[in-house]
C-alpha cells in the first residue's frame, strides 16, 4: 500500500520531468487542497500505474482533452506529450484522427493550440516536418485502401461491422466520404501506429459516452494488439480528464467483450 509520502515523492519527480518546458510560472493555486489531491493522485498515482506506458497514457489524455475542449487543458497536455518525446507530427495526427470521432471544431481548436505549443521551442519547431502523404485520386480507391487497412488492423469482423453500419444504409454518400477519408487516408498516415490510433479512439468514444460503438472498438483494440489490461488502463487514464463515471461505464462494455473472448 502506498503511503502518501511515497505518492508525493513520485509525483514531484514526474512533475519535474513533465513541467521542464512550461514557459511561465505556475499560478498560485485557487484551492491548495485540490492541488494536493491532483499531485498525489494523478502524478504520483494514475500516470505511473502499471499496465500502460507513459506515451500511450499521454495519447489517451490528449484525446480526452480534445473532447473536453478547454484550451488550457489541451495546451498543457500537448506540451506534456512533446516533453515525453511524442513528435509534433504525431500530436497533430491525434487531432486529425479525432476529426472522425469528435468533429471538426474539436480538431481545428486542437491543431491551433498544438501549433502554438510547438512554436515555443526551437527543437519542436525543427521536428515539425510535414508528412509525405500519398493522396489517392478517387473515393473508390480510398474505400478500397481503407477496406484493406481496416482488415489488417482491426480484423475481418470490424470490416463487416463497418460495411453494415446504418450510416451506409441511410446516408450512403456521406458515409462513403467518411469511410474513404478516414480508413483510406487517415489510417494510412504514418504519424501514428495502429495501436496509438486505437487508444485515441477508445478515449474519444468513452468521453462522449458512445457505449455501443465503444464495445465494438474494444474488440478491435484487442485485435490490433492492445492487452486486456492496456484497454482498461486507457479508460482509467482518460477518465481522470473527463470524470470517473465514464470509466465505470466503459469498463462494463469492455468486460462483456473480455467474457465473450474468454479473457
Amino acid at each position, binding site marked *: 500500500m502506498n503511503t502518501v509520502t511515497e505518492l508525493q515523492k513520485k509525483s514531484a519527480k514526474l512533475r519535474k520531468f513533465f513541467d521542464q518546458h512550461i514557459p511561465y510560472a505556475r499560478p498560485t493555486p485557487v484551492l491548495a*487542497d485540490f492541488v494536493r*489531491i491532483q499531485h498525489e493522485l494523478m502524478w504520483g498515482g494514475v500516470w505511473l500505474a502499471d499496465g500502460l506506458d507513459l506515451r500511450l497514457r499521454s495519447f489517451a489524455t490528449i484525446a480526452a482533452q480534445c473532447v473536453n475542449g478547454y484550451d488550457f*487543458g489541451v495546451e498543457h497536455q500537448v506540451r506534456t506529450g512533446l516533453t515525453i518525446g511524442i513528435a509534433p507530427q504525431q500530436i497533430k495526427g491525434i487531432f486529425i484522427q479525432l476529426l472522425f470521432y469528435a468533429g471538426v471544431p474539436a480538431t481545428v481548436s486542437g491543431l491551433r493550440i498544438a501549433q502554438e505549443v510547438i512554436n515555443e521551442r526551437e527543437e519542436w519547431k525543427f521536428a515539425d516536418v510535414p508528412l509525405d502523404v500519398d493522396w489517392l485520386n478517387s473515393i473508390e480507391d480510398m474505400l478500397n485502401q481503407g477496406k484493406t487497412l481496416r482488415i489488417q488492423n482491426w480484423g475481418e469482423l470490424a470490416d463487416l461491422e463497418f460495411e453494415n453500419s446504418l450510416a451506409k444504409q441511410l446516408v450512403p454518400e456521406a458515409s462513403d466520404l467518411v469511410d474513404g477519408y478516414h480508413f483510406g487516408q487517415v489510417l494510412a498516415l504514418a504519424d501514428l501506429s495502429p495501436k496509438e490510433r486505437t487508444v485515441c479512439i477508445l478515449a474519444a468514444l468513452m468521453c462522449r459516452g458512445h457505449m455501443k460503438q465503444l464495445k465494438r472498438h474494444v474488440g478491435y483494440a484487442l485485435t490490433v494488439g492492445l492487452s486486456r489490461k492496456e484497454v482498461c*488502463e486507457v479508460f482509467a487514464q482518460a477518465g481522470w480528464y*473527463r470524470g470517473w*463515471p465514464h470509466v*465505470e461505464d466503459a*469498463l462494463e462494455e469492455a468486460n462483456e467483450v473480455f467474457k465473450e473472448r474468454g479473457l
Partner: protein
Amino acid sequence: MTKAKDLARKAANLHAFIDQHVPKERLTGALPDISKDYVKLQEEVMWGGVWQVPGLDITLRSLATITAQCVNGWDFGLQHQIRVGLSLGMSPQKIKGIFLQLLFYAGIPATVFALTQAQKVINEQKMWQEEDREPLKAEWLASVEEKLERGRQIRRNTWGRQADVDLESTLSQELVPETADLVDAYNYGEAWARGDLTPKERMVCILVALMCRGHMRQLKEHIGYALNMGIGQREICEVFSQAGWYRGWPYVEEALEQAKSVFEGEG
C-alpha cells in the same frame, strides 16, 4: 391558473435579492437588445418559475445549478451562478468545495476551469475575499489504506450498507484496482470527510453531475443512496428539474425515469 404577469413579478423580486452583487455592466448587458423574447422567456420560466417552485430550497437549487454549469464549462455561466450562490449566502469555501467534489465526477479539467472562474468572482467583492482568507483545515490521512477505511465508514454511515457493497464490487475495483483504490481513497476518504459541504449537498452535486453526463445506471444507484440519506423523493426530482434547465430538458426525462423505477422498487 398561473399568470405570466405573476411570474414576471416573482422574477423581479428574486432579482432584487440575488443580483445585488452583480456588476452593473452585466445587468445592463446586451442580451435584452439581442433578443427581448429570450429575456422574457428566461425571466418567466426560470427566475419567476423554476427557481421558486416548492420542494427544494433555493440554496440547493443554486448548488445544483452551479454543478450543471461546471459540467457545461462555459465561463459566463459559471461566473453568473457562482455569484448567485455567493449572494444566497454560500461561503467561498463551499463554492470551491463543490468543484473539488466534482473532480471525481466531471474530471480534472472541469474542476480546474471552475475553480479559476470561482476565484475571479470571489475577488469581485471585499467581503467574499475576506471570507475566502480562511481556508478549511482538512485532516489529511497519511496512507491510502487509512483513507480507504475512513471512506468506507463515511459511506456506510451516510449512504447505507448497500452502497458500500455496490461500491466495493465495482468493475473498476476488479479491472483497474490500483487506480480505483486512489479514487475511493481520495473521494470518500478525503473529499467526503471535509467540512465545506454537508453530505446532502455533496449528494446533490453527484446526482446532477451523473444526470448531466448521462450516466443513467450509476444515477439509478445514487438515487437509492440519496433516499437512504433521507433526501425526499420530491427533492430528488426537483434537483433534476432545476439542473435540467442548465443542460437540456431531455436529461430530466431520462433521470426521472430512473428515479421512478427506484421509487417504485421501494414502494
